[in-house]
């Protein structure tokens, strides 16, 4: 029993890990525990746990058919373990499914809401029914020892043949409909796997897998419980498995030939290599090894060959279940460690229950006995810790508990940060308008840009994309901008707007007009460019740089120089910037910065500046470059359009010329003025609903 104890100790560890992950998955959702995504909604839990779990449980129906339908009584000794394996396999599938379903507590909806067109509906029903059948088939075994269940047991034994037939029919449907699941998504399967007869292929390979799984499982228990392996009986199972595998290969390749996909068998795609690997492992290798009688008579070879074949067909299921589709979509799906640990934990848990049932009920003719299990035995010295842990049975339990707890603790420590990953919003820095304002009439001093605070972009700075766009935009536009005209193209895509700066100054009254647009300046600057505060194309930015003011290399200010002592240091308890920077707001500016609360009802900063109206803001948050430009320009243009009865002045095409065809654009102003706090206000419903004809 020492082998079994070591195996159990090993199995308790993934169960402990899985326990921690279970908490993670059900408290924080699928996004926190898995790497599933909108591009790959099914991952390891479906691809391995469900697809392979069902296939691995095929031994149950194959062996019941062998013994009860074909009446081959010499296999009777391996029927009970096979049915037990099938039962636990299905329990594991359901457990895996509960992890994978987004709303597992709704799983009973399958019973009341029907959609007979859905293969998954059929799979779900077959799982439910077959699990019931397997429970009834296996129940007589544990009921043997309980005298009060004798009548139930007798009844179930009488019902055995109908149950077996029902089980075979359900398995046939179910094994094959796992293949039907994928018929509706031809684009998700490589052509070497996608076939209209996928259900048939799944069914044939399930039979082979069931036979090989029975061999594997028999050798597995024989090794761990030091029993004599039933090599002779298993050899005839192996020979049957060989014929089924040959049939499988023939059907699979003739299907490829019939669909004209043979040319896909050669190629450099990794899927092609995977196909050949799968065919060798799941077909050719077991067929060859089972055919060589010298190997087939040796338990080790038999076990190994069965393991290879089982692995190969599981690989086929995993391939169909998503592995060959990994590289499709935006991002590569690789299972998270939580997904892998959960899968391992489910398998480990199933094996532990299997071992428990084998030891406590008469799955075999005689139960395995532990020579050291006598509770009256003296305790043993643990050679590692030099501690007395009690009798071996008790000591083993202590060790299992320790393995479980330590593994769970380890997993919890990795789960400490349940933050769900976000890629973050990509910043799109706004760049300075290109061109030269030239000599402005009526203005003596030339406008000076303080470019030291925000360096103008160079091809070397920023992301590669920005640099590339900068070069492209420069090539397109740099040569063609005359003096007095600015080209506003904040994100350097070449989609800018030509702004006739000189003309606007002339129209609006020379020097006095500056403050209409240049409502705020950087300190020690006159008429700062828009991009200096509205630094991002689409997101609000902070015009006030707190860290720079506080740092020694910046303004080197102590906290109390701005925040009054004795009050919380918040943005509300701070002296206005204009106390120090007297030149920030030019005289006549339309925006004044003060500490008065003038945000609107929705909590947003008042938007839509119209010239002449004084808007006071109590924050230095600057709206995005795009919003700033639209609100400033469109506000003024709307007034002109109304005053001079020229609606076209307020239309998009007035400014956005050239690259885009805006000629169809009707007046966008209605919608733009309806924007309040990033929400569109829908037009009110018509007085009388005119869509009565739309009713079904």
């Amino acid at each position, binding site marked *: 029993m020492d082998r079994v104890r070591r195996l159990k100790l090993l199995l308790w560890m993934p169960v402990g890990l899985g326990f921690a992950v279970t908490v993670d998955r059900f*408290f924080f*959702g699928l*996004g926190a525990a898995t790497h599933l*995504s*909108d591009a790959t*909604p*099914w991952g390891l839990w479906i691809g391995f746990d469900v697809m392979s779990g069902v296939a691995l449980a095929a031994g149950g129906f194959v062996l019941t058919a062998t013994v009860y*339908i074909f*009446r081959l009584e010499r296999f009777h000794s391996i029927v009970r373990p096979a049915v037990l394996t099938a039962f636990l396999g299905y329990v594991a599938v359901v457990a895996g499914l509960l992890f994978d*379903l*987004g*709303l*597992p507590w*709704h*799983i009973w*909806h*399958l019973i009341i809401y029907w959609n007979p*067109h*859905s*293969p*998954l509906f*059929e*799979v779900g029903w077959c799982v439910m029914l077959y699990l019931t059948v397997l429970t009834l088939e296996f129940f007589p075994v544990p009921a043997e020892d309980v005298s009060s269940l004798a009548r139930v047991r007798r009844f179930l034994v009488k019902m055995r043949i109908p149950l077996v037939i029902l089980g*075979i*029919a*359900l398995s*046939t449907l179910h094994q*094959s409909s796992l293949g*039907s699941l994928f*018929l*509706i*998504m*031809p*684009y*998700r399967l490589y052509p070497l796997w996608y076939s*209209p007869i996928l259900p048939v292929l799944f069914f044939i390979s399930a039979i082979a897998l069931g036979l090989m799984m029975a061999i594997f499982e028999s050798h597995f228990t024989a090794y761990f419980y030091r029993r004599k392996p039933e090599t002779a009986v298993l050899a005839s199972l192996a020979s049957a498995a060989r014929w089924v595998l040959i049939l499988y290969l023939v059907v699979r390749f003739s299907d490829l030939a019939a669909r004209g996909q043979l040319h896909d068998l050669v190629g450099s795609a990794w899927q092609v290599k995977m196909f050949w690997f799968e065919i060798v492992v799941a077909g050719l290798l077991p067929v060859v090894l089972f055919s060589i009688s010298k190997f087939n008579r040796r338990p080790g070879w038999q076990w190994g060959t069965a393991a290879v074949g089982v692995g190969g067909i599981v690989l086929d299921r995993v391939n169909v279940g998503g592995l060959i589709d990994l590289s499709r979509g*935006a*991002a590569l799906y690789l299972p998270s460690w939580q997904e892998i640990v959960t899968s391992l934990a489910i398998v480990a848990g199933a094996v532990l229950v299997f071992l428990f049932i084998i030891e406590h009920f008469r799955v075999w003719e005689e139960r395995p006995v532990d020579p050291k299990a006598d509770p009256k035995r003296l305790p043993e010295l643990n050679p590692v810790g030099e501690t007395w842990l009690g009798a071996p049975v008790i000591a083993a339990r202590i060790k299992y508990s320790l393995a479980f707890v330590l593994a769970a603790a380890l997993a919890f420590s990795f789960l400490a940060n349940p933050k*769900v990953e*976000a890629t973050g919003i990509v910043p799109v820095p706004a760049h300075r308008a290109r061109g030269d304002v030239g000599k402005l009439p009526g203005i003596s001093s030339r406008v000076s840009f303080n470019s030291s605070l925000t360096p103008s972009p160079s091809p070397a700075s920023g992301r590669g994309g920005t640099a590339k766009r900068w070069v492209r935009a420069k090539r397109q536009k740099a040569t063609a901008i005359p003096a007095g005209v600015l080209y506003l193209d904040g994100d350097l895509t070449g989609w800018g707007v030509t702004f006739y700066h000189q003309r606007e100054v002339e129209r609006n009254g020379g020097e006095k007009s500056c403050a209409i647009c240049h409502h705020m300046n950087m300190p020690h600057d006159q008429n700062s460019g828009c991009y200096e505060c509205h630094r991002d194309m689409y997101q609000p930015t902070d015009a006030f740089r707190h860290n720079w003011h506080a740092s020694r290399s910046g303004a080197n200010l102590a906290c109390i120089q701005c925040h009054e002592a004795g009050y919380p240091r918040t943005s509300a308890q701070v002296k206005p910037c204009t106390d120090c920077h007297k030149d920030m707001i030019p005289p006549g500016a339309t925006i004044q910065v003060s500490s008065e609360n003038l945000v609107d009802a929705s909590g947003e900063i008042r938007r839509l500046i119209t010239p002449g109206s004084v808007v006071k803001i109590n924050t230095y948050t600057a709206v995005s470059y795009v919003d700033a430009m639209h609100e400033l320009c469109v506000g003024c243009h709307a007034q002109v359009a109304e005053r001079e009865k020229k609606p076209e002045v307020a239309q*998009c095409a007035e400014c956005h010329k050239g*690259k*885009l*065809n*805006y000629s*169809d*654009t*009707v*007046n*966008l102003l209605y*919608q733009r003025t309806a*924007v309040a706090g990033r*929400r*569109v206000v*829908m*037009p009110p419903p*018509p007085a009388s*609903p005119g*869509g009565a004809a739309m009713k*079904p």
Partner: protein
Amino acid sequence: MKTAILTDTTKCIGCHLCVEACKEVNHLPNDMPRRWDMRDGLSADNWTAVIRRDDDKFVRKQCRHCLEPACVASCPVAALHKTNLGPVVYDKTRCIGCRYCMMACPYGIPRYQWDSTVPYIQKCVLCYDTRLKHGREPACTEICPTKATIFGDRDKLLGEAHQRIRQNPGKYIHRVWGEHELGGTSVLYISDVDLSFLTYGARFGEKPLPVATRPAMEAVPFTFLGVAMAMAGLRWIIGRRDKVQREEGSQEPEE
């Protein structure tokens, strides 16, 4: 009446008002880029998106509301269903969260609330409950300032689409996307760029996807009964053969 949407990508100016209107009407929160996004603008909080292509063309993406939807055929609890008016709607009280619809959709439309402990499928429902039922058109088409996306009867919109292509043969690709492929959709496109990128692969024909599973699903009851009867018959025949052999075997020594 089968309602539909016709989107003319040549008229789209990329103002995103349809996206904002959709959020307003369906009470969707502001979007945030997440790990599980497909980078096409759609997400659990964005039911429609305007894709800006590298060639500076705008294409609005939304649920296509197929005439024979793969998602509806695949949903095991019938949480998705195609209404008589045209939209494919979602009943979240039925959903079990299996995400088979996301696997089955050839356009990759349904999205999942991965960050939620109680997650649901999210997709465009053509404003069915909020507006369509009350005789109003969807928010996206109503707000569109350039009428790049319009709402109406499917047959009339198909006529309109073909007429626009006829009148401007040089401007459009001579094809109405959504007219025939995969059985047709209720969201139609005419365009001056190839819109095959909206689907997962260009290799499906005009056959609706649910047709592929139909033979397998129709075979289910026959397989079930056939296998059960074959097994019962085999057991009887083999039992009979064994019995005869035993009787012969027991008689042999006597002879």
